[in-house]
């Protein structure tokens, strides 16, 4: 029983990490039709930004309030990078989807090369608040505290995104734009301004995933963003493109399936199971869990 609880908590933690990356991807695709392969670069920017800030930023550090200051810095780096990518690279290619894909793929490769060039390809130990190294006992199971950190962060981001979408003017424009971008423009709304905001919000969430994911993994590497991005894309497709709640549900399912399959079948079967789950969803319900079509 305690093993199952540990697996469930770890699966949920993994799902939370996927959701943080996938939520921005999903909104960006849903609103703008952009398959953003550079999203992993925002994650890496958050991870490296947090690590760098913990070493160099006055007041920041590996523990306590200093850690959160470092995370805030990392998240800001991810958000600013995402906004710049939208303004400088995506906007000039508005409605030219093939070129957008090529640019974002190129950027993701360039980002990995840049990080390797500056800090090398070896894993760098990541600042880890002391309390995340401990465990919390739940019904006899010792659950590592970092799982709760990931789950709490994902819940906070989910709540924040839903509040943004539901209660703000810009959220109304995003929801309408996800349904029918041309009609939003035909009502006199310059939806491109919203694009930058959605990119920045998505970049911030991915950067948070980078920072907290590195706490979970204990280190940061240049390839971290790319490897997590693959699963985030699977989550987005399973959840339904453009749906935040769909992404949340899909992230939980993918995280749990991956974790349980890895333990009860064999190591590595988890990844295979997720791909099979994707294939099943595409065959049975191509519009994803939320019912939205691509």
């Amino acid at each position: 029983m305690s093993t199952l609880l540990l697996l469930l908590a770890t699966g949920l933690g993994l799902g939370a990490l996927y959701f943080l990356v996938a939520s921005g991807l999903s909104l960006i695709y849903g609103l703008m039709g952009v398959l953003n392969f550079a999203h992993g670069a925002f994650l890496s920017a958050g991870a490296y930004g947090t690590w760098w800030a913990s070493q160099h930023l006055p007041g920041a550090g590996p523990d306590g309030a200093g850690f959160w200051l470092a995370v805030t810095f990392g998240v800001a780096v991810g958000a600013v990078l995402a906004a710049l990518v939208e303004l400088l690279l995506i906007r000039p290619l508005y409605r030219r989807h093939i070129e957008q894909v090529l640019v974002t793929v190129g950027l993701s490769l360039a980002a990995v090369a840049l990080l390797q060039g500056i800090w090398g390809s070896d894993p760098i130990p990541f600042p880890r608040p002391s309390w995340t190294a401990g465990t919390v006992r739940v019904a006899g199971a010792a659950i590592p505290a970092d799982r709760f950190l990931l789950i709490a962060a994902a819940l906070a981001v989910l709540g924040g995104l839903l509040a943004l979408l539901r209660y703000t003017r810009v959220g109304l424009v995003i929801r309408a734009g996800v349904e029918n971008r041309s009609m939003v423009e035909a009502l006199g709304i310059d939806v491109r301004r919203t694009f930058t905001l959605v990119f920045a919000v998505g970049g911030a969430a991915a950067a948070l995933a980078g920072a907290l994911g590195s706490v979970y993994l204990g280190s940061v590497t240049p390839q971290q963003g790319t490897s997590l991005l693959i699963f985030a894309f699977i989550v987005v497709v399973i959840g339904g493109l453009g749906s935040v709640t769909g992404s949340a549900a899909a992230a939980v399912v993918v995280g749990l399936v991956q974790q349980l399959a890895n333990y009860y079948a064999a190591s590595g079967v988890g990844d295979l199971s997720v791909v099979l789950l994707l294939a099943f969803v595409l065959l049975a319900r191509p519009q994803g869990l939320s019912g939205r079509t691509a």
Partner: protein
Amino acid sequence: MTGAPRPATSRAPGEPLLTVRDLHVHLGRSHVLQGVDLDVEKGAVTGLLGRNGVGKTTTLKALLGLVPRTGTIRLQGVDGSIEKRPTPWVVRQGVGYVPEDREVFAGLTVEENLRLAEPMARATGVEPDYDQVHQLFGELYERRKQKAGTLSGGQQQMVALARVLLGRPRLLLVDEPTKGLSPRLVTEVAQVLERVAERTTVLLVEQNLSVVRHLVQRVVVLDAGRVVHRGEAAELLADADRTRELLGVGARRDAKADAGTARPEVTS
């Protein structure tokens, strides 16, 4: 409809609110619009007619900038031509658009659909005209919390019209507002358009000749992306052979339609 058709006696065209010259649109390899010239008279309802696929909807989209276009488009009161301007800018000059198939935001409530149009009004320095909207579409107020996707086709058409009227447009582009509606709803939509036309210039794409006869003063007929006829609506519709030749439909005058039952009389 509310009664006798508007008088459409022969007269010289009035001052144009919108002037279009040599409008071209290429979509992929198709040269959809091939030099359309068009004047929309201020204060009147101009009908943009033609068979299916001749470029009527594309013309409306080109005016708004929803498709790439070349040519000259001038709107009264706006310096210079507007064909290079993006869609939101054109709309904020007071150009409203009711698209074919309504295109309401199905996942949003009626209220949210309307709220989206508020900036259009404020861009022209006026407050959103909720009074007119509630006056014309009382039912929508009762259904304001309902998702637009759950409304009937006629109700969705009302949302599409209300949404754009909220912005107090000075030019309204309306694309086949009666398409797919029951005869009773055709009458209701035509009545609303008639009241809207009392205060707004309208460019109307419409296949239902009863509605055209009732609302439209001047017509421009397209064929294969070119203008093949322009003139008074009444004159064209009085000539059954010419109407059949240009529109490919019967031009039988339907007395019942004019008497208020508005039975669609398009016969392909």
